Structures are given as C-alpha cells and as structure tokens.
C-alpha cells in the first residue's frame, strides 16, 4: 500500500499539527538559554501558525472529497480509513478554531505561571492531531487510536500544574476515560466479531443483513461504543468526572477540555452515528436521544445552584452537550456542527472572561462578579453576551438559531417527546444563566471587580465577542460549516 497524493492531502492537517507539536517540544527543550518571555512568544506564535495553516488548508479544500488509505471492498464502495469531505472540513474548522482560541487564551502572561509552556503547547497540538484525525476517521481502529491521542494529552494537561487538585482532577478524568476506552473496545471487538470488519461503511452494510440474534449482539456492541463516547463527552450518567476535573484544572485547560476535547468527542460520535453504526430508525439513535434528554436535564438542573463560575460552566456544558446530542440522535450533521461552532466560540469567550476574573479573585465565586456591569462594563457586556448565547435568547441569536436548528431536526424526526424535554431545558438553562447575569447587574456592590485587564486578554475576548456577534447577525455562516 502506497500513499497517493490524495492521501497526503487528506492527512496534511494532522500531519502538520504533529510536526508542529514536535517542533514546539524541541524548541522548548533545546532553547533553554533564551528568556522565558521570548520562548513563550515563539512557542505561541509557532503553535498558532500551525493551527492557522490547518484552518487555511481546510478553508481552501472545504468543498473537496478526499478519501485516504482506501482499499477495494469485497462488496460496496471502497473502504477508507480517513476521509476529508465537507463534513470533515466543518468539524476540523470548529476544532482548529477551538484550538486557536485556547492558544490565544494561553498567550503571554495569561497562562498560569507554574505551567511549563513547551509541554503545554505540545500537548495541545497533540490533542488537536487526535481530534482532527477522529473527525476524519472512517474505521474503528483509527477512531480508537485517534480518541486516545485526544485523551491522553488532555490528562497530562490537567495534571500539568503538578499540584494536589490537578493530580486529583487528572486521576478522575483518566480513570473514567480509560474505563470508557475499555468498554468501547469491548464493544468494538464484538462489532468486529459480528460483522468481520472495522470499516464503518462496511459495518453499516453488513449490520442490516444480520439475523435477529446477531442484531441483538450488534446492538449491545454499538451501545458499548456509544457509551465509550458518552464518557468522553460527559453525557449523563457518565458525567461524574467532569465538574471535578474542570474545577481542578487550570482555567485554560478547562477551556481546552470544554472546547477541543468535547468537540472531538462529539465529532467522533457524529461520524459513528451518521456513517452507519446507527442508521436511521435504529434503536441506537433512540439511546442517543434518551442520553440527550437525560443529559440536558441533569446538566441544567445541577447548574441551577452552583456558586462557582467554573463549576457552573462545567454543568452547563453538560447541558449543552445534551442539546448537541439531540440533533445528533437524528443524524442532522448540519445542526450539530452549527451548534458546536456557536458553543465553541462562546464557551471560549466565557472561559476567557472567567480566566481574567479568576486570576485576580482565585475563589471563583459568582459573587465575585457582582456589579461588574458598572466597574468593568466591557468585560461584563461581553460575558453577558456569551451567557445569553449559551442560553439561546436574543440578542444571542447564534445560540438561538443553533437551538432552533436542533429543535427543527428533532421535530422533523418525529421525536416530539424529546422536543418537549428540550423546551423545558431551554427554560431551566435560562434560569441558570440568569443567575449569573443578575450578579453582574447587581448594584451597589461592596467590592466590585475592577482591574487593568491584560491586553492579550482584552484582544482575545473582544475577538470572541466579535465572532459571536457576527454569527449572531449572520447565523447562516454557522450552518454553512457543514452542508
């Protein structure tokens, strides 16, 4: 098997990211003599450049269809391990944007001082390699490997500060993740046993022709695979690790977990669901729908009474995943990618704002935000906008329309009950975010938050806010990501 030009093109982005990762690590390791400041800048710029290359590449090739590592199949179309197609382009775009955002949040003087810069960026890029591969993967072996390549650097990132909280957070995430990998692999082994293939398209073809008893085995196996992903994206009841890990990790890493890691999981699940593991009308889609309903309800409810900003965001991200799972359960890739994109932008923004506040007020309580609309109007308005988008209410039209698309997908698939649950959760979700917004508006505050915000932070948050505003005014851009 030789690599064709098409193959190279398809894997160009992960490959460049990987090379960049190694380069970053090498620079950090062998350029100790330089001042930390300069090293940080160089590393950040290099990482950013690599990711930007990926983005440009994706933009340039967005309409192409490039299968890679293919072999002719016994029956049906050729079996490929990695495919670059418009959907992949959309997912990669979201993932890379997320990565870029995290890099921006970790720009000079923003990253916590006790985090080693080189390792941080290396791990970040490595995870991105895995994430992009996962979104393009079309066989189960690639899926598993890619998933591990996303996950393992994440745990390392969580523990990067090497403190008590970080180690506990990493341990929890790690145990859950490894267990989930084992469960998923167990399911994959059965899927392989039943269908005799690891290629998703072939599995999909063969699943339909199975006799009923085998189909039951296939269902169980598929369930295991989905559960594996459910761990990764912290769908309820596989969510227990998430709030603790988010709370224990540095804010930048939390943002990374919430944005890149979670998006990667969603992307993988999306690929699995729409390329054949769970064809239209299968029970597995029902499982995903149930997961969606439970996840959004529990996530939003639990967020209702959180007092810490990061924890609130953690729980609300569980709720958001529930909303993501809803269109996913009916295989509406466009709605999923659109939702994911909006979610990524505003989550980055929200974490950015939290990072700024948390730097000066380490307690991270919601009460720290009291009266900020007067003392720090710019930051407060941006944060309010991000929260409103998360809640899905005007003026956060990006959130509104992505929720709308999710509703539409669900309604079109005749899942009325899920739509009602979603309607309820729009209400609960709003209650969650309103508590925070109310704090921001509350006057007079005893000790309002007012500091000189670092320029890079101002730039990044303005950037996120601008992006959120643009996608709010032109929501069609969100849905153009996956056509």
């Amino acid at each position, binding site marked *: 098997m030789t690599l064709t030009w098409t193959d190279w093109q398809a894997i160009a982005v992960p490959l460049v990211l990987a090379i960049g990762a190694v380069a970053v690590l090498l620079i950090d390791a062998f350029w100790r003599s330089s001042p930390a400041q300069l090293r940080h800048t160089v590393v950040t710029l290099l990482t950013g450049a690599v990711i930007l290359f990926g983005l440009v590449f994706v933009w340039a090739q967005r309409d192409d269809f490039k299968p890679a590592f293919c072999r002719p199949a016994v029956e049906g179309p050729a079996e490929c391990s990695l495919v670059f197609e418009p959907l992949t382009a959309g997912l990669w775009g979201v993932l890379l944007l997320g990565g870029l955002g995290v890099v921006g949040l970790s720009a000079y003087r923003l990253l916590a001082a006790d985090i080693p810069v080189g390792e941080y960026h290396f791990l970040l890029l490595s995870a991105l390699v895995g994430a992009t591969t996962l979104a393009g993967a079309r066989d189960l072996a690639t899926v598993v490997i890619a998933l591990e390549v996303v996950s393992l650097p994440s745990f390392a990132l969580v523990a990067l500060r090497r403190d008590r909280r970080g180690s506990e957070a990493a341990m929890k995430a790690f145990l859950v993740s490894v*267990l989930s990998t084992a469960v998923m692999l167990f399911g994959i082994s059965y899927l392989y046993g039943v269908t005799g293939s690891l290629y998703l398209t072939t599995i999909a073809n063969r699943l339909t022709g199975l006799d009923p008893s085998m189909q039951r085995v296939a269902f169980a196996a598929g369930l295991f695979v989905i559960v594996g992903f459910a761990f990764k994206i912290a769908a309820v009841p596989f969510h*227990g690790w998430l709030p*603790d890990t988010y709370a224990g990790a540095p804010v930048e890493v939390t943002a990374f977990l919430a944005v890149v890691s979670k998006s990667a999981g969603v992307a993988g699940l999306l690929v699995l669901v729409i390329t054949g593991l769970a064809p239209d009308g299968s029970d597995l889609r*029902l499982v995903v729908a149930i997961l969606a309903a439970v996840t959004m309800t529990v996530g939003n*409810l639990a967020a209702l*009474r959180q007092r810490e900003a990061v924890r609130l965001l953690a729980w609300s991200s569980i709720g958001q995943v529930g909303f993501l799972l809803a269109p996913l359960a009916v295989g509406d890739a466009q709605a999923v990618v659109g939702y994911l994109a909006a979610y990524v932008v505003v989550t980055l923004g929200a974490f950015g704002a939290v990072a700024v506040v948390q730097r000066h007020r380490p307690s991270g309580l919601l009460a720290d935000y009291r009266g900020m609309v007067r003392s720090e109007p710019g930051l407060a308005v941006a944060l309010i906008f991000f929260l409103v988008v998360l809640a899905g209410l005007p003026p956060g039209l990006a959130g509104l329309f992505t929720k709308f698309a999710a509703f539409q997908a669900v309604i079109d698939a005749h899942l009325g009950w899920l739509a009602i649950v979603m309607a309820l959760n729009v209400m609960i979700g709003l209650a969650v975010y309103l508590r925070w917004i109310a704090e921001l508006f509350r006057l007079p505050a005893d000790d309002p938050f007012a500091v000189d915000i670092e320029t890079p932070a101002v730039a990044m948050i303005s950037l996120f806010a601008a992006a959120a505003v643009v996608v709010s005014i032109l929501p069609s851009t969100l849905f153009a990501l996956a056509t």
Partner: protein
Amino acid sequence: MIATVWRVAGVGFSLLLVLIAALLYGDSASQHAFLNSQIGEVTIGFAVRTDDLTVLLLAVVGVVATCVQIYSLGYLHERAASYHALVTLFTAAMAAVVVADSLFLLLIGWEVMGACSYLLISHYWERREARSGAVKAFLMTRLADVGFLFGIFVLGVGAGTFRISALDPAQIDPGVLTTGTLLLLVGVVGKSAQVPLQTWLPDAMPGPSPVSALIHAATMVAAGVFLIARLYDVFAASATTMTVLAIVACVTMLYAALCAAAAVEVKRVLAWSTVSQLAIMFAALSLGTHEGRHAALFHLVTHAAFKGLLFLCAGVLLHQVGSAAFVVLRRYTRRGRLRKALPVTFVTMTIGLAALAGVPGFAGFFSKDSVLEAAWEHAHGGSVVGWFVLVSVGLTAGLTAFYCMRLWLWVFFRTPALAGAVGAFEADDPMADLEDPDTSKLKDASWLMLAPLVLLALGAIALGYVDGLHLNWVVALASTVVVIFGVLPAYSLWSRGADPRPVLLEREFGVDRAYHALFVVPVRWLSKLSVLGDRDVVGAYVRAVGRSGALASQGFRLLQTGNVQTYLTAAVVGVVALAVLAGVIAS
C-alpha cells in the same frame, strides 16, 4: 373659577335642551346616522332621530334639568365644579338616550347615566351610606345592563340592524323577539328600579337632593319608561313580554307603595313613591294599547313635574333644617315653626303631594286617571291584564294617598294628641331626648332655590290640563273615592298620634338582606377562593416546579461526592439502565 364656568355651562346646556325642543316642536320625524362601521353583516355606529317623543322628553329633561341646575346654585357650594359638570353630563346622557336612533348610542347614554348617578350619589363621599349606596346603584343597574346589552344583541342580530327606526317586529322571528324584549326588559327593570332590582333606589338617597330630583323626575329612572315607549311596536308584538311587564309593574307598585307607607324619612318616602309611580307607567305600557302608551307618557310628564318638585322641597328641608328625617323635622314642627318659617316650601310641597296623591284638580289626578281609563277600556275588552292593572293601580292610588297624607301631616303639623311630644318616631332615634333645636333662625331658602319650586308647582297643577279635559267621570269618581279612603286613615292615625309601622314593611320585606346573603356573601367567598386558589393551587404548582428544580439541583450536587468510584458505579448502572430502557422502548 372652574366652578363658575361649569355652573354657567350647566344652566346653559339645560336651557339649550329646552330651546332645541322648542325648535324641533312640530317638525316631521327624521333620522340621521353617522360614524358607522361595518362589522360582518351588521353596522355599528351612531344615529339620531327626532319625533314627537323625542321632543316631549327633551322638553321634560330640559325643564327639570334647568330647575335642578338653578336650584343647585343655591343648594350646593362645595365641590361645585365636579357636581355641575356631572349633572350636565348626566343631562347630556339622557338627551343622548332620548335622541338616539342607534341602540348603541342609546346604550351609551343609558350607561353613562349610570356612571354619573354613581358619581353624584357618592358626591358626599366621606359618608359611608353615600359610598355604599352609590356602589349598589351602579352594580345593580350594571347587572341589568348586561341583560340589556344581550337584548340589543338578540334584537339587532335578529333584525340585522341596530337602528331603532329600522326594527320591524314583523321581520323578526317571534321567539327571538320575545327573548330580545325580555332581555331589554331586564335592563329597564334595573334602571327603573322595579322588582326585583328595586333596592338600589332608596339607598341612593344620600346623594344631594337636586340629583335625586333629576334622577327621579326626568332622567335615569324615566329612561326605562322612555325605552319601552320608544320600542313600543317591538314590545307590543310580544305578548309574553307584556304580560311579564304587567306582573312586574303591578307587584312593584304595591310593594313600593307599602314600603313608602312605612318609611320615616322624607326622601325615602319619595324614593319609594317614585318606584311605585314608575310601576304605574309600566302598567299602562303593559296594556299594549295606544291609550296605554299615551297615558304612561302623560303620567311621565306630570310625574316629572311633581316628583321633581317634591325632591327639591325635600332638598330645602335638608338645606335649611339639616335633615329630612321625620324625627328631626318633628322637633321643629311641634313648636309649629316649620310651616311658618318655610312658607313657600310648605305651599309648594303641599301642591306636589296633592299631585302625587291624585287629588282632583292637580296634574297627578289627570294622568293617573288616564292610566286607569286605559286599563278600564282594556279590561272591558276582556283582557285579564287590564283587570289586573286596573285593580293594582286603584289600590296603589289609595296607598299613595295614604302615605302622602301621612308625610304631609307628620312633617308640617303639630299633633294635638301628642301635645308637642316627638311621638311615634323617637323610638329609633338615639337623640330623641335632646333639647329642642333653636328654631328662631329657621327661614326659607334663597330665591334661587325657591324659584324652581314655584315653577314646578305651577307645572304640577297646569300640566294636568294640557292634554285637554276628557275625563271618564265614573273612573274619576271612583279614583277620588279611593283617594279619600286613603287619606282618612292617615288623618285618623295622625290625630291619635300613632304611626304603626309593621316590621315587614319597615324592613322592606327583607329583600335587601336576602340579596346580601344570596349574592354579596357568595361573591366574597368566591373572591377569597379565587385569591387562595391562585396562591395555593396554581401558584403552588409554579412554586413546586421551582422548588423541585432547586431540590433536584441539590440532589445532583450531593451525588457529586468527589469519589471517582461512585461516578464509575453510576456509569456502569447507567449502561445497564440504558440497555434495558432501549430494549423496552424498542420492543
């Protein structure tokens, strides 16, 4: 300043009405519609008409209103601006009713009168009975007006028009006609304070006396009579409605006359007498004949004069003496001062009472006579209703004479038998044993107040003759005898110093109390129920949702123990549950 403007405007407007009536007199009937909009198949908007009835009523309203406005100049000094404005609005509303050719314009006038009466009755809003009387008046008439509105719907939709001149009973389905007229009758009963919606009128007495004069003589309560006269063809086409009207009228006239015979306050006596006299008009209308209508309108006009007069006289008593309660007036009377200090009032009031009682020669005699005559003719034609009306009106005439005489004697004359004691009325007065008031300063009212009295007193005599003298001598004689039979017992009781008042009559048959228990109390309970229901049932659900959300939130927080193995266990249980759930749903 503003008060002066309104005073002038009020008097001017009333005079304008008289002028318009004079100008329109003799013109041929005409209609004019304006501001209409089409709603589906029906037209909603306004229309006015002029005809004899309009002119007649306009004249009556104008004259009475003028008298009342002028009288009020002397009578009332505080809150004069709002008072005169409201009286003017009141008059205008009545004028609107009178000229209306659109049922909606009529309804506007009809209800604006209700609102104005509410505001005027509560003119002395610091007094408790004024407040409650006003509310009662408005609510009872409003209740009736709902029926009235529905009646308008039924007739209007049934006939396809809301124009009075276009309502043709022949075009309307008989069932619809009966329903519609009965519903209109509800409104009429409420407005004219007939049984069973009679209780508001006597309670409306705490209002200023001129207002009572206006309400009772020419406007509000007369509007009911006017309405039936206006829609006489439509009403007459439904025999059921006319029978109901007759029954209501006959019951009311006797009931009200009995109540009046036991009342111990001049204005209350007069109020009940209004109810009773209106019932006489309704009885005449219920005959369904042209004579009946004529008699009713005749009585309306004379009644306007003498009832207006009587209320204005009562106003003078109130103004000069400070009260119109028998017990207070008796304090002045037993010194024989009242009659001498207030000569003009005494004379005019005597004329008014004579007219009310139907003493031959006074206006009331002739108009009542024409009612009796119409009933007699109708009864001769073999109508049960006619007999019924005839007997009732006869009895009422006797009772009327009785209570007029009683009022006149007790208020103005010393009782020889009591030799100066307050007598029959002190039982219910806590201040009965007080010293006699200083009667030396008592004098008659200013000429501003007396002039209308004189004018109306002239009317109370002269109006009897405007219709031409065509007496049925038998009926006239019989009614005179009835009057004498009414007068004599009153005289005899007075001369013995006794005023027996049966409890039943004094409590006005307990209707008020029954209504209170039947309607007011349940509504209060329902209102409490509604408030509690919102708070403890509907609101409880909402609060429960909020609480359960908070509780669930707390529960999920408790699950977050920090122990990773708990999380893993939950996850494994979750896998099993998912598998089972999906299996259940799939099968």
